[in-house]
């Protein structure tokens, strides 16, 4: 027991966490997801997700080639090539260049790859591989969710700590700022931010981060107000600790469990919010894909009996969300020594 007492706070928390089997499983799952996201970001895997490698709605391999796929057959129909008649030539200013066009075009002609009738997890309407697509989408969604949540929690914690710890005029000023911020309807606020930042994935992160900090701010502020009068803070005060030290070394670990819960909630919220932004045309650009986009695509597909995109994205996304939620929950327990252990 004496040995354990010498552990630092974080080390002890880490030990408690590692002792939990469920936490280990969650960490393993999250490690796989993050590794995939990084690998996809570096272009090691799923780089060619946008290639039409299969026919439209190619069957998953386990269903086989014979599973009926009329859409696939349709997508194989190519346009008929027509002869340009004299009447058309007569009005075409480019008519003198026909021969040269044909000749130069030959250099660009590529051998057509034969699209496959089956893909490991099936294909989407363009015949793109769902497996590659879901990995690529995971990269975008995880990046957006985690980065935006981290940003929102950072801003919320910082402002909440300052407002709660100091109180007084500074606290009032921050409260006033918070009130103004929350009085603007959320969607309008998001649109205003998006208009300032332009488009792209980084915009989505900034927009969600800078509009989503308000809940965290309120929570952390109230917690700091509660904690600042506690004995341990008084003690720290007595030995002459600085404000910053009291705020971030003494009080912060005692509220860290709240921050982590906020973080996990926001990651999930932001992954969903990204869908709305994409719908409004401010989210991920057309040449990128996210889980939200994939979910958006499945409604009409289900009518056609094409369930594999939904199955893939639902499995992958719910596993991530559940693992992330459980992990933060266990982390919270580990960080709060007083929390009841089962």
């Amino acid at each position, binding site marked *: 027991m004496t040995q354990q007492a010498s552990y630092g706070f974080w080390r002890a928390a880490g030990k408690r966490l590692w002792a939990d089997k469920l936490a280990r499983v969650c960490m393993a799952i999250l490690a796989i997801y993050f590794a995939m996201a990084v690998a996809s970001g570096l272009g090691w895997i799923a780089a060619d997700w946008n290639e039409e490698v299969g026919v439209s709605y190619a069957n998953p391999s386990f269903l086989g080639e014979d599973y009926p796929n009329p859409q696939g057959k*349709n997508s194989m129909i190519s346009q008929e090539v027509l002869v340009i008649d004299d009447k*058309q030539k007569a009005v075409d200013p480019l008519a003198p260049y026909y021969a040269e066009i044909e000749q*130069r*075009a030959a250099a660009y002609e590529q051998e057509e790859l034969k699209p496959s009738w089956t893909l490991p997890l099936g294909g989407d309407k*363009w015949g793109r591989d769902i497996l590659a697509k879901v990995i690529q989408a995971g990269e975008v969604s995880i990046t957006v969710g985690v980065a935006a949540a981290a940003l929102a929690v950072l801003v919320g914690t910082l402002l909440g700590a300052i407002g709660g710890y100091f109180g007084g005029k500074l606290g009032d000023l921050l409260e006033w700022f918070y009130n103004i911020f929350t009085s603007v309807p959320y969607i309008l606020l998001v649109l205003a931010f998006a208009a300032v930042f332009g488009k792209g994935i980084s915009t989505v992160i900034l927009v969600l981060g800078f509009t989503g900090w308000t809940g965290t701010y309120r929570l952390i502020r109230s917690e700091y107000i509660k904690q600042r009068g506690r004995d341990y803070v008084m003690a720290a005060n007595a030995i002459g600790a600085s404000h910053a030290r009291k705020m971030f070394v003494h009080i912060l670990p005692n509220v860290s469990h709240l921050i982590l819960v906020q973080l996990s909630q926001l990651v999930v919220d932001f992954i969903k919010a990204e869908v709305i932004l994409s719908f409004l045309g401010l989210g991920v650009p*057309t040449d990128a894909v996210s889980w939200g986009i994939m979910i958006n695509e499945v409604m009409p597909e289900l009518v056609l009996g094409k369930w594999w995109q939904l199955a893939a994205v639902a499995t992958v996304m719910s596993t991530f969300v559940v693992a992330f939620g459980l992990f933060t929950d266990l982390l919270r327990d580990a960080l709060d020594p007083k929390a009841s252990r089962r």
Partner: protein
Amino acid sequence: MKFVTFAGLSCLAWSLVAPVHAQVADMGKTLHTYFEAPESGFDPAKYSDHYSGEVNSSIFESLLAYDYLARPQTLVPRLAELPQILDDGKTFIFKIKPGIYFADDAAFKGKKREVTAQDVVYTIQRIVDPNSRGAPWDFMFKGKVIGLDAKIEAAKNKPFDFDKPIEGLKALDRYTFQIKLLRPDYNMPYIMAAPATGIVAREVIEAYGEESEAHPVGTGPYMLKSWQRRNRIVLVANPNYRGHQYKPATGNGIQIDQTVAKQLEGKTFPRIGTIDIRVIETPQASWLSFLNGQLDTHPRLGYNYARLIAPENALTGKYLSLGWRYFREAEADITYYMFNMDDKVVGGYALEKVALRRAIAFSYNQAKELSIIRNNQGLAAQSPLAPQINGYDPNFRNVLGRYSPSRGNALLDMFGYKDCDKDGWRELPGCKPLKITYMTSTGADGRDQEELLLKGFNAIGIKLDIEKMNFSDLLKNRQGGTYQFAGGAWGQDYPDAENFMQLLYGPNAGPVNESRFRNKDFDKLYDQIAAEPPSEARNERLRQMSRIVAAYVPWIYNINRIRTHIAHPWVSGYKPHPDNMPHWYFLDIDAAKQRAGTSK
């Protein structure tokens, strides 16, 4: 109870004027249907949106109408007989049938109000009056009628003078109306059949003023009973309506749907007392409502549901056994991409500009749009025209239309669009940066189209930027010419090629000709086709116009939509019409079967 009295009175009135076997609508029968987008208001002169038009077409009547079952679309008498055409298409004389009355309204102070030629003169002037919310339908008469434009001009800063007589619009006597045009226009009879020219009574319009859209009073089979804006519209049968019996039009090449004709035989319309219309904007929701019997008819099924119930153009499986009435037809419309011909980058008529647009056209995969995005519910458009209209040639092919990025690349190389800075994207000749902005609306779920476009542009190495905005802003940019590249769609106002070709006519450059295409040869041909009746020579001129458009590429054609419409077996007389109007008054319901069907 009131209706019984009305019915008695109107039976009496009918027996005097028309020898029809008068019957009144059964007030116990209700038709449930839906709109896929909200309506605006029920004043035909003020609103041009489609769904207001559907309601207006049932409340108001125009001088003429299209035969319900005849294809191709054939004009038949409605308030007036078919017109007498004089001066080679410059003068039209309409004889209004005597004894047709408006629905009762407080504005008539308890008197029966008959339709007269003066009402037509008033109605047409209202359509061009800028005070009618900017007169969205004025293109039908503006610049065409003798003396009318001077009146419009004079109305710019003072109220429109309805009383001053003009040469172009005259009531020759109580029942004879004459319209005189500056140049021949054989489409005038069609225009007089459009829902927008539904005849209104001046007393009513003046009594309600700004509120006229909520107090529609017409001569048609239905009246507005209640209106919850953008949510629910309830129509009831008009007890003053004279009753209508369907007699199929006859003539050369006219085909009649005999199955439906049998269902209509011997009946006096309307039969259904109440039309209950809900606004349901989600295709899935309307489909489910139809499935459980909450809707009796479902016009314009979503593409996927259309595909689901009838993959091979006939109902299959369990949907066949439900006994649904099923129709699938090409709609008289076209969707397209357009370039702003006044734009410095994509517009212009220099060879290199034509080459740029042609290269982009080469990059557009029309077959994929049709098979993957539209689930084959369409035809690959070959000209600016649409099926079901005069002058449309189903055998005409756009011989320049071809998906071939390699030819696009070749063209761009030849005309100096090279990748100067080796960043993978082409630059303009002379190495100036090249980026094309595609404008689209946020509302429509257009991601599929965007993906397809982007893929094409990437294949020819041109950077495409997609800018999204709400629909009204998009429309403003398109009409104001502050765009580079955008999507468009057009449906018929009347079934003639002129109604489509006007979208590319030079002098219309602006809100009508949004791509601002100007071509001397095209305009000359347009002037000819606008002033002549349909003929093979005219069709050849139309083909020539299509060839010019194909060569200069102000538009890239997408598709002509094919729509699927279904109705439950207890609805009889149902048939979609290419004019896209609902024609509810020809429908009938077997009430017992309806009850049984909905309680299941």
